[in-house]
């Protein structure tokens, strides 16, 4: 017992303090790299696992479902409505969450360490990965971003040049909310050289007047399976070129999860999008009438 305590003492004194500034601008100080982690955002969960520290997760939010191993962990509610009590009961060394969640202050008041991060753009994703890497003391966190970057570039290269300038509409949900040029989805599409019908000035995920889409007349529409129903039957939409010519990328629920999470699977998302663009859009511009 004494020996054990001594070892613990040694560990405590030899391990240096760890400091990370999160996206709220709060400097979070930990005595050592966290061994018990709760993650309240799927993309952060995936990042922790990609960094090889999946075994340190003790609890996740209800939407975190990848990799499979996290499905066995304790679920502590959603990112926006987390179960504070359940989180405290897990005695985590750190809670990773989105900046937008209100739970941070409450958890901090209860004595927990909170690192709030906001991956919204490609640059954010890169920064968030480095931060989590520093937090988990993973030496080469930059590697993940390099892999994503290489994956997106490879996906872009796999596309035939004929898809350049293809007019694409990516519908996030039936609001209709779209993924604009300034969203991370839009950034990937920009790297493919296709043109997004929703310009950056409208913000990352604007709620559009459906008439805007009819007027912009996209050549290709990307949508998840849960939102595809009734697309053709929306007032005026049957005349949209993408729907007339059947140029529709429908992503399954699992694929859509990959698409909408700004995390380590962005390369896979890029590959899925590129495959569909190549399949559905390659001949669109050769037939004249761009």
């Amino acid at each position, binding site marked *: 017992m004494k020996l054990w305590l001594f070892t613990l003492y040694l560990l405590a004194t030899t391990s240096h303090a760890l400091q990370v500034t999160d996206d709220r601008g709060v400097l979070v100080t930990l005595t050592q790299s966290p061994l018990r982690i709760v993650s309240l955002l799927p993309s952060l969960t995936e990042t922790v696992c990609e960094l090889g520290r999946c075994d340190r997760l003790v609890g996740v939010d209800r939407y975190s479902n990848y990799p499979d191993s996290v499905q066995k962990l304790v679920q502590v509610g959603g990112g926006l409505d987390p179960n504070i009590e359940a989180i405290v009961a897990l005695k985590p060394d750190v809670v990773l969450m989105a900046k937008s969640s209100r739970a941070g202050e409450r958890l901090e008041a209860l004595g927990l360490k909170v690192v709030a991060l906001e991956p919204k753009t490609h640059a954010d994703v890169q920064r968030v990965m480095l931060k989590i890497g520093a937090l988990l003391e993973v030496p080469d966190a930059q590697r993940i971003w390099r892999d994503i970057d290489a994956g997106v570039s490879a996906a872009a290269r796999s596309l035939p040049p004929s898809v350049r300038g293809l007019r694409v509409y990516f519908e996030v949900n039936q609001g209709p909310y779209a993924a604009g040029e300034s969203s991370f989805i839009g950034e990937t599409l920009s790297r493919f050289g296709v043109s997004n019908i929703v310009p950056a000035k409208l913000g990352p995920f604007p709620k559009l*007047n459906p008439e*805007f889409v*009819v*007027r912009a007349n996209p050549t290709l529409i990307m949508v998840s399976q849960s939102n595809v129903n*009734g697309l053709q039957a929306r007032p005026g939409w049957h005349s949209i070129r993408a729907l007339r010519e059947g140029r529709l990328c429908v992503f399954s629920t699992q694929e859509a999860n990959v698409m909408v999470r700004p995390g380590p699977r962005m390369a896979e998302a890029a590959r899925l999008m590129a495959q569909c663009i190549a399949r559905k859009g390659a001949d669109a511009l050769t037939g004249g009438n761009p």
Partner: protein
Amino acid sequence: MNMRQRVVWLVWSGVVSAVVLIGLGVCVGSTGFEDLLSPLLNPQVDPVQTAVAQQIVWEIRLPRTLGAWTAGALLGLAGAVAQGLFRNPLADPYLLGSASGASLGVAMALAAMGGGAGMLGSSVSDSANLVVSVFSSSLWVRVGLTGAAFCGALLAVLLTLALSRGVGHTLRLLLAGVVVGVVLGAMTHLVLLMSPDSLQAMQAFILGSTAFVGWTSTLLMAGVWCLCFVAAWLLARVLDGLSLGDATAISLGLPVAAMRGTLVAVLALATGTAVAQTGLIAFVGLAAPHLVRSLVNTTYGNLMLLASLAGGTLLMAADILARGLIAPQELPVGVLTAVLGGGYLLWLMHRGPNRVAGANP
């Protein structure tokens, strides 16, 4: 001006403002205000532009604008019926819980038809054809959702009435209505939580949306409005009689109980139909009858017509603002009606307590 002339004058101003707003509604869209009428009238100038203009006006803006009017008319009518039926100026489709009931009906229908896959936690959603969208424009889906909304609304009103043990006690009635509304609203969220697939679409729906209203929805609402209006108009003299008290109404030989039941059904049908097509749009049902009563003291028959016109105009104006203010993005129309209708009611109350006319004209 006597009462009759005043009513006629108000009907005309309601019709004229509706026509003006329809004209405006056709010209306001994702590009803000624009003149689409000239390419429509001069097709020889630019045939391509004319085809686009024709499609946008005929398939999108016109049904949407008219749809906003019919939905507003239904809510205005429902408000007038509710206020007369319950002899209460605060009664409106929302305060009595019928709108919450209607949206619960819609949510349950959606969960049963499409979101069920999510509820079971399996990936049955591969059978995409079974998934029904809240914004679908197929006639049978619309009729089905309307039926579900009607059942929900009817159930909610009956529940409110049962809890308040009749309409005699104003405070009890309103309290029961608020409780039923909150409980059914919470149940709607519970249903949505269990079927995440329909959650996203329902979120837009709960805020109120006229974005996808097409001809099917518009014609359905117009048909139901005609039906409800005729029924309410025929029964209006019961409401006039009721405004003198139950005993007087019965002594006039009116079959009060049966007619009350019919009016509750009219209220539920009008609310349910509007909610099933456009979601939860606040304050139109409350503001429209008050707007009319602040201008004229009249019989319930006239009030039904005038409240419909006022509700239609109010919602149509709100819809045009929702599309125009931050085009090509959209504001949720329910937020605007709350601001417009609520602001109007506040102003009315500010002018003096006597100006917010009681339900008894």
